[in-house]
């Protein structure tokens, strides 16, 4: 009997837990002018800068020693001014009167702790490799921070956009920073809620409440945007079409440094032949790729440094339309003669190679198909292989691959690892085994020289050499597309990075003000 009533009691409990009040407000509350909802695609794994959250600035809860303006210039943030970068010692003076969200004043110890946590192998920080040039960070007194480097490293200032966390804080705990927004809550897999930091040392944002809503699926994000749930969202180029002529919403196309290209294994018979690589560079129809595959949201690419950034070398260029006559002439001159089946042959070797792409990435798949059909036109047979990354890993040194890289911040970023012979065959760094002593020297000089004009010359030469050697076949630069509801001032687009972590244009939300 007692057991039966217990069972009954449990059922009653369950029922009462589910009974809901009969009336509730219907419809989603419209975002007011001091609340914005940003629809983002990929949720961060962690909100801690030490574990890689938003390291390149645009973080809403943290400040770095320096920060970037939309046109990618560096400004002092937690530092009082931009220090001189010379040799292996860089000293920052900290801004006075800055406090963390929990009220603690910022001191040099916090900065030293943040960098020590990134460099500590036990934390498994995904960004540790970016800070490999740092020997250690010391704080001789509360207002001074000294970076000791293993070797002269010009991009060190660019790296100090890393958000600063309080000394001795737990890196898996709640986020505490000094930034314009404070953390309120995080419903994992759903959204992050932020509130304005009233004690912010800089200009306080106009938007007081910020919701970062995460929806992985592009179509679902477009639907939620159309339904009025979002103030702004990021969408792929093909999905923004429906918003182009809508009342009250604006479509923004923002250039990026994010390129896609073909990585060639240079130690293989066919792809190792310069004539083959040059001919492919002439034969691919980049213009068609931009218009058909990217729905117009992109630009042809001819090198690893994006046009629109200070470091781009305008001498390295090409034509968006294919030049088959020149491509064919190049092949003929190098001794690649058309065989019986239409495929060219040289010394008994057929002009045939495999091009891999990650199977889940439809954009790369379409680019691979386009490359193969353009190559066919000049008698080169490209076999496609859609694989997952774990399979691609095993074949990097044998087969070509559609890859994507690109950073607008510093020409040393990724390019050192991609083209320096010391990195040949190191995972995805220089998988093609490119070895050129002159490029090695240039890259080392570019990294070790502080003077901007001298660096510019060095990287212009690097771009020229890489283009001459046709190390890669660069195809397109992507544009990132956004949809924004309402009239805002302060939406300033700049050239964006490969990663979407900060939400690119949406990361400028701190500067948005309702337009009158």
């Amino acid at each position, binding site marked *: 009997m007692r057991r*039966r009533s217990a069972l009954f009691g449990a059922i009653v409990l369950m029922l009462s837990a589910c009974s809901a009040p009969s009336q509730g407000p219907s419809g989603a509350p419209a975002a007011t002018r001091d609340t914005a909802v940003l629809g983002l695609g990929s949720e961060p794994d962690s909100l801690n800068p030490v574990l890689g959250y938003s390291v390149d600035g645009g973080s809403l809860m943290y400040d770095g020693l320096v920060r970037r303006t939309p046109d990618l210039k560096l400004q002092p943030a937690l530092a009082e001014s931009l220090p001189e970068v010379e040799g292996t010692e860089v000293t920052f003076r900290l801004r006075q009167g800055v406090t963390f969200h929990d009220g603690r004043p910022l001191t040099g110890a916090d900065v030293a702790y943040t960098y020590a946590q990134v460099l500590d192998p036990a934390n498994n920080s995904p960004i540790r490799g970016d800070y490999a040039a740092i020997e250690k960070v010391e704080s001789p007194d509360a207002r001074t921070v000294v970076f000791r480097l293993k070797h002269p490293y010009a991009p060190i200032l660019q790296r100090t956009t890393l958000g600063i966390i309080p000394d001795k804080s737990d890196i898996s705990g709640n986020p505490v920073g000094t930034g314009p927004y404070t953390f309120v809550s995080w419903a994992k897999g*759903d959204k992050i809620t932020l509130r304005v930091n009233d004690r912010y040392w800089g200009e306080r944002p106009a938007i007081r409440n910020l919701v970062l809503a995460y929806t992985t699926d592009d179509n679902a994000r477009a639907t939620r945007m159309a339904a009025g749930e979002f103030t702004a969202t990021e969408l792929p180029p093909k999905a923004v079409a429906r918003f182009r002529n809508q009342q009250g919403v604006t479509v923004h196309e923002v250039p990026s440094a994010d390129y896609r290209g073909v990585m060639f294994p240079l130690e293989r018979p066919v792809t190792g032949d310069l004539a083959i690589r040059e001919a492919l560079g002439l034969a691919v129809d980049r213009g068609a790729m931009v218009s058909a595959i990217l729905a117009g949201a992109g630009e042809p690419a001819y090198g690893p440094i994006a046009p629109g950034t200070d470091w781009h070398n305008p001498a390295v260029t090409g034509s968006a339309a294919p030049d088959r006559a020149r491509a064919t002439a190049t092949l003929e001159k190098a001794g690649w003669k058309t065989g019986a089946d239409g495929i060219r042959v040289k010394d008994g070797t057929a002009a045939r190679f495999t091009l891999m792409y990650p199977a889940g990435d439809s954009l790369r798949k379409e680019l691979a198909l386009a490359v193969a059909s353009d190559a066919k036109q000049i008698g080169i047979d490209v076999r496609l292989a859609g694989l997952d990354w774990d399979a691609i890993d095993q074949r990097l040194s044998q087969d070509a691959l559609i890859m994507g890289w690109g950073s607008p911040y510093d020409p040393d970023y990724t390019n050192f690892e991609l083209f320096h012979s010391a990195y040949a065959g190191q995972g*995805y760094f220089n998988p093609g085994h490119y070895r050129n002593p002159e490029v090695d020297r240039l890259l080392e000089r570019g990294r070790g020289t502080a003077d901007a004009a001298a660096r510019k010359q060095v990287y212009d030469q690097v771009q020229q050499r890489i283009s001459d050697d046709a190390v890669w076949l660069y195809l397109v630069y992507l544009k990132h597309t956004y949809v924004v509801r309402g009239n805002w001032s302060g939406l300033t687009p700049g050239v964006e990075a490969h990663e979407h972590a900060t939400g690119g244009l949406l990361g400028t939300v701190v500067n948005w003000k309702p337009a009158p």
Partner: protein
Amino acid sequence: MRIVLWRLAFAVPLLLAVTFAMFALAKASPFDPVRQYLGERAMVTDPWITAEIRANWGLDRPLLEQYTTWLGNLLTGDLGESRSLRLPVAQVIGERLGWTLLVVGCALVVMLVAGLAAGTLAAWRRDSWLDRLVTGTAFTNEAAPVFWVGLLAIWVFSVTLGWLPAGGLTDAASTTVTLPDLARHLVLPVAVLAFSQSSWLLLFVRESVIGVLREDFVTGARARGLRPRTVLLRHALRSALLPFVTIMGARVPELVTGAILVESVFSWPGVAGTTIKAALAVDFPLLAALTLLATVAVVAGNLLADLAYTVADPRVRVLGVS
């Protein structure tokens, strides 16, 4: 009580076998947890850092050693760190278990009430058009995958009619969880889960009520002039319910799978949906704990069914099992 002890004694090797099998599968899988952990940054991370992370996680150790380490930590109450969520596993489960229990609990109640009502109705009006409609729907539903039913419901009620939210726990713009908001978001996941799990129950109830209605004592009750409704509720349903309790326990695995699919379709922040994410991210500390949890749920479900049976049916107790 003996039955409980027996069951528990049996559960321990079962749990060991399940978790070990999971570790073995993990070891054999071609996916690299470190790559998943690094995500977009996998490309720009030095191979020597990758190797260090691997060593930190003990992935370079032999399988048996990895498993015994995990088991040892488990026994001391340490479930380890979730790699994909960068949080202690215990915290992840703690934060999410409640939401799953809420959906599953509500769905169970809805499913029992609706299944019993519809099943009895169909039995009572046997061979009418209503009966055909109910059983036809049930058969179709039994054949339809849960995620498909979920997507269909989203398409009809959220996209086309716009009555209910398509997913999530609360509206995007809301900063706190309020009851009305939560209730609106609960409707679809609960309804879909209940609906998808109720076919077998409905058909079972229908069959057994039809069977009981034919039995002597019911016919006798009718002959004594009792009202049809009394006959149905007092006699027929009561004896039909007994086997149902046992079957209920056996259906727990289906319920677990159903919950996993429903949570991921409706982006519900519970533990079930997290299972898929953990598997995709090759997040083994989390996946191992969730597998353990699901196995425990299945074992406990069966045990509860047996206990409920002894409570419900006096004859079982007479046989001296309890």
